[in-house]
C-alpha cells in the first residue's frame, strides 16, 4: 500500500514538474496610452518571447513601424527590414518578466527579499493590504509602498514619497487566463504631479502561450537583415 502511494507520488511529481517546465513561449498584443499637459503617447504593437531562443521581440506598428529586439548583449532597432541601431547592453533576457513567467521562477523576487520590510497586513473589503517600509539606508530616497490583492491577484500598488505623500498608483485589472497563466488585461497608472493627476493606461490582449504555429516570429538572426547598423 505504502509502495503504491510512493509510486503515485513520484509519478505525480514527475508529471507536475514536466508540466511546469512546459511553458516556453508567450506572445500578445499591447497598447500604451498616456497624456500629460505637454505630450501624448499612443504605442501599439505585439511582443514575442521564446525562452529557448532567448530573444525578446517588441514589434510596434503604431505610431511607427519598428521592432525592438533584445538578444544576448545587444538591443536592435529594426526599421524597414534593416538594423537601424544597435546598442550593447548587459544580457538581461533571463531577467525579463516573460522569461520568469514562463519558468515559474518567481520566488526570489518578492519584496520580502528586497530592502523593504513588511510593516503591516490587513484584510479589508475583500482585499489583503500590505504595507512595506524601506530599509534605513533607503529611507532618504524612497518612501513606503502599499500593495493590495484581490482573489490572489495583485490589484493595486501605491508609491509614497519620503514625505509620505502619494506619488503614484497602479491598478491591475481585467485579468485573463491564457494557457494556464494569468495576465492583467489593463494596467492603469496615475501619477500625482502637484494638484494634477496624469494617466497612463496599458492594455494587453490576445495573450498566447506555447504558440507552435508561427516559429519565425520568435526567431531573430541579425544576418538575415540588411546592413546599415548604426552602433550606439
Amino acid at each position, binding site marked *: 500500500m505504502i509502495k503504491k502511494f510512493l509510486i503515485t507520488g513520484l509519478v505525480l511529481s514527475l508529471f*507536475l514538474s514536466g*508540466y511546469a517546465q512546459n511553458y516556453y513561449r508567450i506572445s500578445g498584443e499591447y497598447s*500604451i*496610452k*498616456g*497624456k*500629460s499637459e*505637454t*505630450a*501624448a*503617447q*499612443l504605442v*501599439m*504593437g505585439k511582443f514575442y518571447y521564446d525562452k529557448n531562443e532567448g530573444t525578446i521581440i517588441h514589434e510596434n506598428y*503604431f*505610431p511607427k513601424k*519598428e521592432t525592438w529586439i533584445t538578444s544576448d548583449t545587444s*538591443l536592435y532597432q529594426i526599421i524597414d527590414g534593416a538594423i537601424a541601431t544597435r*546598442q550593447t547592453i*548587459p544580457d*538581461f533576457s533571463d*531577467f*525579463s*518578466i516573460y522569461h*520568469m*513567467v514562463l519558468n*515559474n521562477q*518567481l520566488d526570489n*523576487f*518578492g*519584496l520580502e527579499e*528586497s530592502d523593504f520590510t513588511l510593516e503591516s497586513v*490587513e484584510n*479589508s473589503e475583500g482585499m489583503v*493590504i500590505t504595507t512595506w517600509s524601506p530599509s534605513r539606508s533607503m529611507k532618504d*530616497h*524612497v518612501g513606503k*509602498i502599499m500593495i*493590495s490583492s484581490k482573489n*490572489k*491577484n495583485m490589484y*493595486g*500598488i*501605491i*508609491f509614497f514619497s519620503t514625505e509620505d505623500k502619494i506619488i*503614484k*498608483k*497602479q*491598478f*491591475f485589472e481585467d485579468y485573463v487566463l491564457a494557457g*494556464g497563466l*494569468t495576465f492583467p488585461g489593463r494596467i*492603469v497608472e*496615475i*501619477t500625482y*504631479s502637484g494638484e494634477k493627476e*496624469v*494617466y*497612463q*493606461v496599458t492594455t494587453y490582449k490576445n495573450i498566447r502561450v506555447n504558440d507552435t504555429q508561427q516559429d519565425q516570429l520568435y526567431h531573430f538572426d541579425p544576418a538575415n537583415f540588411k546592413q546599415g547598423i548604426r552602433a550606439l
Partner: protein
Amino acid sequence: MKKILLSLLAALVFFLPGFAGHENLFSYDQSGPETSLAGLQKAEDFVTAHEGITLSDLQLIHPDWVRGLSGSSGSFIDPGSLSGQRVLRIPSFLWGCFLGPAGVIVVYLVAEDNDETRKSFMGCISWALGLTVYYIVAMSAFY
C-alpha cells in the same frame, strides 16, 4: 468591568479610523483616465479598425484625437521622469519595471544619474511585485 469595557470602546474609536482609510486608498475615479485619454482611445480604436493607417493619415483625418502625439514608439510617457536623462528615450521607471535588476544596472551604467537610477529601482520594485503575482497564480494552478 465597566472600566475595561469603556477602555476597549475608547481603543476601538481611536484605532478604527486608522484601519478604515486604507481600502479607500485603493480606489480611483474611473472617469479620470477615460476622460483624459478619450481622444487616444478613439485613435486606438480607429487604428485597430484600419490596418496599416499611419500617424500622418490620422493627423489629417482626426487631428483633435492625436494632438501632441509623439511619433516615436520607442519612448513611453512617464510623467515622473519628464526631466533627467533617459536611456534610449525610455523612462528609467520602465527599465526597472520591465527588466528588473538588469534594468537598474542598465540605467546606472548608461545614465550615470542617481535620480534616474532611483526611478529605475522603483520600477524594479513594481516588476518584482508583478512577478510575485505570477508566482502566486502559477503555484495556485498546481495545488
